[in-house]
């Protein structure tokens, strides 16, 4: 008895009971598609985050001063000197002081983030302007009162008109607008677009108590990132004497931590979805058991005319496999549709189709077919032909 004939038999018996076969498959369909959709969603969100992080560049190192009420302060001058001493591994340094405050133009005002920094900030953090210019070294050195504004601010207080050359009042002091930051993908909703950037010298004057709480550091190349991080740590430990008072982070570290987290998240989501696959498998077993009882007479006839145990066993197993196989394929198709039209269509997260997970969930659905089909198939194969023939 060859496999083609068994497959034909299986398909015949599946198609002769369409509604029931469909309901049996439904468990697998839902299971497989939810695994793939969950994984697609998780991977899509991961992609979203890593994409936006990696645009910042992996040469970027951030120093955050976390210790509050500390009398020791790292000054920009200290760090600048440190950079010059280690220029082979550290390319540039930009200080950042930030506060929130009211900015005003004409009679319109807005509360926004005020970032004090230097010209190097643009290069380190890949910030560009869409009109005018960014801060220059000159602005910091000569204490110029100039400002580069984000588009959210422009849209709000200038009504979208180009503000370059106009004045802006920041915390009550007049500044000259010299440039407009390039609008990011997320538009005005992004915090990166809702800020004004002024020279660090002007920022310290505006707020005498302003402490520079973070620095952006750019390593000379991606190869020197690790040694730069190490040197910075030693340098900072010497100043603060306590490693809890500051934190040195690198994008590559952040990315790898993130990928561990999202990997776990993907596995958890897939695991939860996989439970529905198992439930689907139990559904198959249930229906197959009913089917064995219902087809007792058929099994008896087949045995009487010469079917061996393994013929009956394979017949029922193949039936279970065909059901889970078709269910798996339909599940994959439905998942692709959902990812394309719902997740992609509404731009919730980027569309990600994970081929390995598709193959995996398809494989698992086949395994479920074998595992949960085995018991009913075995029961059918072991029926006594006489009893089966007499069965009403």
């Amino acid at each position, binding site marked *: 008895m060859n496999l*083609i004939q068994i497959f034909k038999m299986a398909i015949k018996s599946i198609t002769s009971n369409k509604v029931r076969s469909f309901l049996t498959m439904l468990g697998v369909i839902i299971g497989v598609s939810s695994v793939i959709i969950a994984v697609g969603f998780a991977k899509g969100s991961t992609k979203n985050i890593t994409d936006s992080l990696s645009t910042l560049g992996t040469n970027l190192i951030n120093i955050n001063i976390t210790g509050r009420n500390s009398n020791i302060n790292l000054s920009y001058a200290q760090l600048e000197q440190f950079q010059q001493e280690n220029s082979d591994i550290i390319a540039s340094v930009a200080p950042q002081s930030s506060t929130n405050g009211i900015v005003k133009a004409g009679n319109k005002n807005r509360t926004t983030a005020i970032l004090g920094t230097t010209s190097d900030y643009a290069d380190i953090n890949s910030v560009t302007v869409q009109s005018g210019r960014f801060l220059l070294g000159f602005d910091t050195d000569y204490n110029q009162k100039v400002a580069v504004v984000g588009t959210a601010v422009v849209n709000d207080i200038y009504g979208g008109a180009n503000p370059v050359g106009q004045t802006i009042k920041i915390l009550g002091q007049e500044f000259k607008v010299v440039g407009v930051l390039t609008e990011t993908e997320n538009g005005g909703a992004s915090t990166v677009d809702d800020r004004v950037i002024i020279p660090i010298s002007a920022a310290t004057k505006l707020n005498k108590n302003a402490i520079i709480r973070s620095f952006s550091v750019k390593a000379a190349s991606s190869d020197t990132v690790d040694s730069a991080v190490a040197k910075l740590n030693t340098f900072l430990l010497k100043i603060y004497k306590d490693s809890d008072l500051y934190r040195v982070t690198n994008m590559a570290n952040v990315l790898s931590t993130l990928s561990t987290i999202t990997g776990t998240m993907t596995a958890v989501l897939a695991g939860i979805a996989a439970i529905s696959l198992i439930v689907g498998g139990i559904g198959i077993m249930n229906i197959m058991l009913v089917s064995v009882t219902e087809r007792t007479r058929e099994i008896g006839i087949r045995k009487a005319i010469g079917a061996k145990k*393994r013929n009956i066993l394979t017949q029922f197993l193949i039936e279970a496999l065909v059901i889970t196989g078709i269910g798996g394929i339909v599940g994959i198709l439905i998942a692709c549709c959902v990812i394309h039209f719902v997740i992609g269509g509404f731009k919730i997260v980027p569309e990600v189709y994970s081929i390995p997970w598709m193959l995996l969930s398809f494989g698992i659905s086949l395994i479920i077919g074998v595992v949960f089909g085995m018991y009913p198939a075995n029961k059918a194969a072991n029926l006594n032909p006489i009893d089966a023939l007499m069965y009403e």
Partner: protein
Amino acid sequence: MIQLTGINKFYSMGENKVTALNDINLHISAHEFVAIVGPSGSGKSTLMNIIGCLDVPSYGSYVLDSNEVSKLNDDDLAQIRNQKIGFIFQRFNLLPKLSALENVELPLVYQGLKLKDVREKAIESLKSVGLESRMNHKPNELSGGQQQRVAIARALAAKPPVILADEPTGALDSKTGKEVMEILKNLNANGNTIVLITHDNNLAVQAKRIVRIQDGVIIEDKGMV
């Protein structure tokens, strides 16, 4: 062809041991047409199950076509049923979802023949009962007589030496019943060994030899050659 020696069959029903067959000795030669007759509960069904290799005796020897089958396992019995015995049942026992042709193909499929040979032999067998024109019909689209002829075609498909007919006319009207008996007689004339199991004397007398069984014992063996 069939040699039963000292066949006993017991069933245990809870505490009680029921003797279905008690020391049956029966020899059926090739080309015979034997009717096994007995009232219900006489043990004729048990005897048929043993002759048909659907069941094995508790004691005794059963030689079919020079093979000792009383000690075989399930799969060997299945193979014997497939190759040596053609079953004709009272209620036809066709698979309702398969066409007449597919039903007839079934024993050949279990023999492991190639698809082409299976089809060829099945069609040939259907022709021999005159039903080749209806081979694509499902059993429920056929009359009772036609269904029984399909069942006969299925029994003949693998060209087994022994045809075992269990009340083959029981579900048919007298006219179609007569036709079925004619087919059986023809088969016997063509060399098949026919064993007919029935409670109906009028049917039994059409056989060349009548074996009467009652309470698990053969009480009469008439016309033995």
